[in-house]
């Protein structure tokens, strides 16, 4: 594994890591300054004003509102500088850019299963190219895990029943630690993997060498057919008894209860697992639940397929000819492996 040249700082290998280190050094500087200031003053007073005779009684002092104000306001200003800096960096880091390459991650006691949008699968290893933005879409089959890459300074919980995301842009080729940072049971400390950052050309070769697998969208299309989604949502997601799916992803959907919801990953997942939760306006509650019938990985494949369905001119081959917008999700689903 790579190490850093700065002692006690992990290797710096993403566009974020340098910025985060700067904030960390600022916070450390302020901490060290105040610790030295307080202990310095403390030691000075303790020596200077030591008890010299057993019966001396110093004069009492009144407090000082000026001083109280001073040492409330100054720390508050410093704290606000930390707050603003930390929040600004966090906002920047929490919103994945639109052009990011998507990688699907499923956590499971005690391994990481990863699938690239081109179909390559990996376990406990994530290969990524340097210089490209990567967005991780993550969920778990069992308990809460946490996908933590110290060299990139990013971490996010991976939560059953929902999708969480995080993104990064790696800068330096090398191999870096991938830790599960949320305690997840017996072999938690064995849930260690690695993130391998490669030069883009090298990465393309690596992809080519592993090209035998189906892309998630194609696998999703097969599930779409075998699970029978096709009979209501149409072969190309054009809709029918069920709402149209083509062009659905990212749009606002009108619900039968009068609300609107954005068709994001979480909405689509919910509509497969629990279709009655958010009914699209104009459609009846006729879709069966797919809870327990589809694994998290299959759900992600269905999601990838639905994302790939674009509104196209009629007659176009491949996934996704035309449909009227207004759509909703298709059936598919989710196996939740229950523990004891």
């Amino acid at each position, binding site marked *: 594994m790579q*190490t850093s040249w700065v002692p*006690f700082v*992990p290797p710096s290998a993403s566009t974020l890591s340098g910025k*985060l280190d700067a904030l960390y050094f600022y*916070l450390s500087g302020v*901490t060290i300054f105040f*610790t030295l200031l*307080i*202990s310095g003053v*403390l030691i000075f*007073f*303790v020596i200077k*004003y030591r*008890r010299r005779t*057993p*019966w*001396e*009684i*110093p*004069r*009492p*002092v009144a*407090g*000082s509102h000026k001083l*109280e104000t001073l*040492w409330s306001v100054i720390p508050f200003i410093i*704290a606000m500088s*930390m*707050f603003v*800096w*930390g*929040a600004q*960096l*966090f906002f920047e880091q929490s919103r994945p850019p639109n052009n990011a390459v998507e990688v699907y991650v499923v956590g499971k006691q005690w391994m990481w299963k990863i699938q690239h949008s081109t179909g390559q699968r990996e376990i406990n290893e994530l290969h990524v190219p340097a210089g490209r933005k990567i967005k991780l879409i993550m969920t778990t089959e*069992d*308990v*809460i895990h946490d996908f933590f890459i*110290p060299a990139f300074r990013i*971490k*996010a*919980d991976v*939560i059953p*029943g*929902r999708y969480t995301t995080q993104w990064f842009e790696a800068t330096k080729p090398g191999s870096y*630690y991938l*830790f599960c*940072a949320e*305690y997840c*049971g*017996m072999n*938690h*400390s*064995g849930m*260690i993997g690695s993130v391998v950052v490669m030069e883009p050309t090298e990465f393309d070769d690596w992809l080519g060498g592993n090209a035998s697998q189906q892309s998630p969208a194609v696998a999703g299309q097969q599930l779409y057919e075998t699970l029978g989604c096709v009979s209501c949502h149409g072969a190309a997601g054009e809709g029918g008894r069920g709402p149209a799916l083509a062009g659905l992803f990212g749009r606002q959907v009108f619900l039968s209860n009068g609300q609107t919801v954005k068709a994001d990953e979480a909405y689509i997942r919910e509509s497969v697992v*629990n279709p009655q939760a958010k009914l699209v306006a104009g459609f009846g509650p006729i879709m069966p639940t797919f*809870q*327990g019938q589809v694994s998290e990985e299959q759900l992600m494949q269905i999601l990838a397929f639905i994302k790939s369905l674009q509104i196209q001119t009629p007659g176009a081959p491949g996934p996704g000819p035309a449909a009227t917008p207004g759509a909703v999700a298709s059936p598919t689903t989710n196996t939740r492996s*229950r*523990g*004891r």
Partner: protein
Amino acid sequence: METFVPPVPSRINYLNAQYGLKSWLLTKDHKRIALLYLGSISFFFLVGGLYAMFIRLELLTPQADLLQSTTYNKVFTQHGIIMVFFFLIPSIPATLGNFLVPMMIGAKDLAFPRINLLSWYIYLLGGIVTIYALLAGGVDTGWTFYTPFSTTFSNSYVVATGLGIFINGFSSILTGLNFIVTIHTMRAPGMTWFRLPLFIWAHYATSLIMILGTPVIAITVLLLAFERLAHIGIFDPAAGGDPVLFQHLFWFYSHPAVYIMVLPGMGVISELIANFSRKNIFGYSFVAFSSLAIAVFGFLVWGHHLFVAGQSLYAGMIFSFLSFAVSIPSAIKVFNWTATLYKGSISYDTPMLYALGFIGLFTIGGMTGLFLAALATDVHLSDTYFVVAHFHYIMVGGTLLAYLGGLHYWWPKITGRMYPEGWGRFSALIVFVGFNLTFLPQFLLGYMGMPRRYHVYPAEFQVLHVLSTAGASILGVGLLIPLFYLIWSMRYGKIAESNPWHLPGLEWRTQSPPPTENFEYTPIVTWEAYEFAPPEETRVVGKFREEAVEKF
């Protein structure tokens, strides 16, 4: 010094008023109940410390040598549960608070002596149930009990342990209730709110959190048990629940619980700093109200435990802001304590050494909390050793040091005997050095990326882990020394005067140990808190008791 103080008359006090087991187990005397608590929390502290020893030994090497995964997971879980629920939370309030709240305000006892005894029995029952769970097979969920691991996947004794915590919560609630009523209704004539020692203000603020927060953890544990036993879908997403809901409920109590642990410590430190520098506290009302501010704002910051748990960006931002805001009252306290020393008459007795250590360590603990309140750095640091180091600085560097300082300070009053001063100073120094060596390296480990709750770890983290274990060994020795000499001093220590430190506080104006009813006469308070005799009256400081008696 002794020349100014008449020898203490040997007479009836709360310790020798009655003899026999029954006189202890059925006592309604707050001082005896404090001693019952002292004995039982010391037992739990030793058990928790034993677990800590196993953790540090296992972490000496990157492989699993001493403990396998299942055992290690139980050991760190049980270390956390025992230390948090059965040592830290009751530590200062149930022992020193129980003993001193009535004495400091000039009352004969707490408002509800029977409820006070009941709270100890409830504590004991909670403790026994938990110990049963540990002996029967233990629990491996982490002290945080995160769902759905705790509800659906763990096959350890989750419900039994939860039951122990549930029961124990009631003892906390009863103690808090008792303190609030006592402080409101039983202050001696003349003891106005702003003459109260800051120890009392701190306990008042703590009691508010105890009665408002503890019911929430009780509800949470109950829901957890329901879900585990009956599979109702509260937290399990497969049954329509929300696993993150648990984290909200859990931290809604457990973050304020941090203030339950540290506020009484701050109260002790205010006493020590003022009394061992013979000065009134600089900015008394600021220190008093900062305790209340911490108690109130402490309820609004739980979401900073969920920055990486899929919480909305804006919720994260608000919680981050409030977390920074709650740091200000703590900063105010530190500055005021430091300013109190200015032009004081500072002695280097053991309790003062602990107090000075507290200020230094609490400063580090508080400042490193800012790293975790800031959103971006928290993302990298949460669930790493940085967090472990941070909260140990608050709970061990803060609460434990304050507890030890307070215990030494009031030891002569509690037992009627002096502890050996040389040994006291020596062990305070050892504790300080050992503590820093244990936990400073863990900040570095955290930023390097070492996750918590790992016992198998990459080899490059080993050097810092070895340092930490070395520090823990020193800390362990530093904590064992007082155990021996304090027990020794109960029999062989020098007989303590009524007022060995020559202080104005009410608890020092009665004999050591106090009589069962605390004071011979109901005291009438005519002085401000920490009002030392003006210089011209210097020579009568040691005669406070006689002076007080005359006045009544």
